[in-house]
């Protein structure tokens, strides 16, 4: 199965009619996601639109109230462990074990994924070196900056060479150089046949690396096409303008002015 996917024979990730309700309130409604091997899908949406909930359903960390998630044609819940063996995931929040060092955290993840010791050691050193944090490898994660933690998370997601990568705001906290490396990395991984879902707020990144863009608003998909097609269809110059047209209902300049007025209030 893994071989099939790595040779480009897999069917990638398909989610149909994903719905999630919390106490009868639907935070995600009937979302369809299809990502083929070699594709990078950008997943956009304002805060509270249901992006992270969708991502957690796609990773199997949250069970959907309705709908199904298939990976290479199989329901992921029929064998969640087999699915996760092929999944690399970078969560939105960098929650790590603070008392472990970066190296120890990667060793933990690598061992859980049953990687051979020699290979694991080699991969850890190489990844930490390439991300520029090898000198801090043995420091506790509690002392890491947000960007350093993010690099550890990305390294952990790549350790086992997964077929499917789900990245939830992976550029969060990264410096400019690291963001450029990350963009190139995503393109390179897609070229090697990986299936990639890329959730982000940074339009420029999404426009540069994603072959297709999905926009989520209030729990529903409001657009699903290539960035170029969306621009043409909506007669806009950039993806940022398309996004604003689709999900931004207030006038940002007016809102900004109102905020400044509130800040300037006197007793």
């Amino acid at each position, binding site marked *: 199965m893994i071989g099939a996917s790595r040779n480009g024979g897999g069917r990638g990730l398909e989610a149909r009619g994903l719905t999630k309700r919390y106490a009868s309130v639907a935070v995600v409604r009937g979302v369809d996601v299809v990502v083929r091997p070699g594709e990078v899908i950008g997943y956009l949406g304002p805060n509270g639109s249901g992006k992270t909930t969708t991502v957690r359903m796609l*990773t199997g*960390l949250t069970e959907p109230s309705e709908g199904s998630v298939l990976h290479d044609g199989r329901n992921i819940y029929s064998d*969640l*462990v087999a699915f*996760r*063996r092929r*999944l690399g*995931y970078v*969560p939105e*929040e960098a*929650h*790590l*074990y*603070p*008392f*472990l*060092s970066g190296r*120890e*955290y990667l*060793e*933990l*993840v*690598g*061992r*859980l*994924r*049953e*990687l*051979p*010791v020699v290979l694991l050691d080699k991969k850890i050193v190489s990844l930490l070196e390439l991300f520029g944090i090898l000198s801090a490898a*043995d*420091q*506790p994660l*509690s*002392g890491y900056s947000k960007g350093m933690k993010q690099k550890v998370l990305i390294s*952990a997601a790549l350790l086992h060479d997964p077929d499917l990568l789900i990245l939830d705001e992976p550029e969060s906290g990264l410096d400019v150089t690291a963001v450029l490396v990350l963009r190139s990395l995503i393109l390179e991984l897609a070229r090697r046949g990986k299936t990639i879902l890329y959730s982000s707020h940074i339009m420029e990144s999404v426009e540069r690396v994603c072959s297709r863009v999905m926009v989520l608003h209030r729990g529903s998909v409001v657009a699903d096409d290539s960035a170029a097609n969306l621009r043409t269809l909506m007669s806009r110059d950039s993806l940022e303008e398309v996004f604003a047209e689709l999900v931004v209902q207030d006038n940002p300049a007016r809102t900004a002015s109102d905020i400044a007025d509130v800040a300037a209030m006197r007793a």
Partner: protein
Amino acid sequence: MSSGPRRLLTAHFLRRLIDDDLISPNADRHESLSMIGALLVSLGLFVSVLISTKYLFNPYLTPGVAAVSALFDRFLFTSAAMTATALVTLLVWDGLAVDARDASVLGAMPIRTRTIVASKFSALVRFAAMFAGALNLAPSVIAPALMVSKLPLTFAQLVLLILSHALVVTLASAFGFFAVLAIRGVLQALLGRTLFTRIAPAVQAALLVSVACAFLLLPVVVSRINRAWIEPQSRAALMAPPLWFVGLQESMVGHILADLPRSTGRRMPARIAEADARATRLYQGARGLFPALAITAVFKLTAVTLLAVLLFAWNNRRMVAPPPVTATAAWLRRGLAIAARGVVRHPETQASFFFTLQALLRSPQHRLTIAASLAFGLTASVFAVAVGSATRRGGADAFAAGILAVQPVLLVALLTGFRHAVRVPAELAANWAVQVAWSGDTRPHVAGAKAAGALLFIAAPVLALIPFYSVMFTPADALAIAACGLAGGAVILETVFLGYRKMPFACGYLPANVKTIGPIAFAAFVFFSYQVSHLELAALRVGGLPTFTALLAALFLTLRAVDAYRRRTPLAFEFDEMPEPPTQRLGLS
């Protein structure tokens, strides 16, 4: 600066001390606080009533006997107040200074550092006062009232006794609190921030074990010291801080009981009159000590308070983030890893093995659990030896059995604590990493955790006890006892993990039903330790310790086989199982 920010900051620090440092941030604060408060008040009530029985059920309670008995009981109350407050202060050890979070959040605010430091200190004092209040309130009212209920006291005298009791136990609590704060301050001032940050967890654990042992051993210690301290020939006990406060109370109100009129209107039997005269003589002989003890109490409490305040101000004079903790030496880390890989071969078992060691040694919550288990184990060991030496009928055998009980008692306490520790998540928010990466089978993980537990809580204590047993018996016997300890420890480890079905350190924590399980576990603990030590002694006397060890090893293998059978297929479980809401637990919904 107005008092507004200071009040707000004090409330904020106080809330964080309770929420983050004393109670788990994921727990229901109201429920936990109610439980802690109820526990403290009911414990105080229970102890007060229990102690008062000797006054209530004495048909001929005389002033002399009451004065001496009250003296002894006051020692227990001041000791309990002092050690319990020190213990709870140690539990919030990390919150006893302006920390990195405060520096990062409040450093950017237009608030003077001294306002932040004063607010933090004020919050700490309020925290200690709240605890001391809850602990001492019931005994302050109940104990003096019951103590003198059969004596001809005026209402004013009773009120005086109650107020003096309340004052003295509060001062004893303050001494316990400021002593911990002063120790922390002295260490930080002497060692500097970097070195102190490194050793602080070890210091906390060591102090916690010592104070917890002292608290648990209070009944034994108090009864021993009470027999001696007012005798003129043994005044070494006067070094004990709780006695200073007893002296303070006696200086204030001791005369009320001792000087009560002896004639109560009915004829006193000669035996009772003699006992009263003896007790009165004993009390009058010790009376000269009280002023000196009172002065010592006032002087030392003032000194410790001043030291704690000054060092708190000095150590927190600048709000700087603590220096990064330096890494474990690479050679040591690699050496340990290579050694462990030789023993634990499966990658997932290795992951669990190393993670268990890291969580137990580095996570504050888990370190506390282990420190508490060690304190309980050490206390129970002392009890076992004390009971053995006090059992006259058994003679040398009873003493030897008491000595032999130390090993199983310590192993059971540590392994039970370990079993509890694996149920507590190492970092709840980070559990997703384990969920995403694990293979779907808990067996290698449980095996890894057990291997780490065997290393830390069987091999280490058994090896540490070899010199003790070499002195008490012979070196050859000590080695045989150690082998027996290893086999017995393995049996205990397998037993406590028989029902464990989850992922160590990576599942949500559901509190166990302590009310049901606690007494059963305690009874099993006492029974097991008693039986094993006597069987071990019998085997030792006839040279059959290797046979006994072989039997334990066979039992271990049987348990292992049972466990393997029960786990023959991977078991389903929930990582994020939620506890029932309190209303449901109480049957209200």
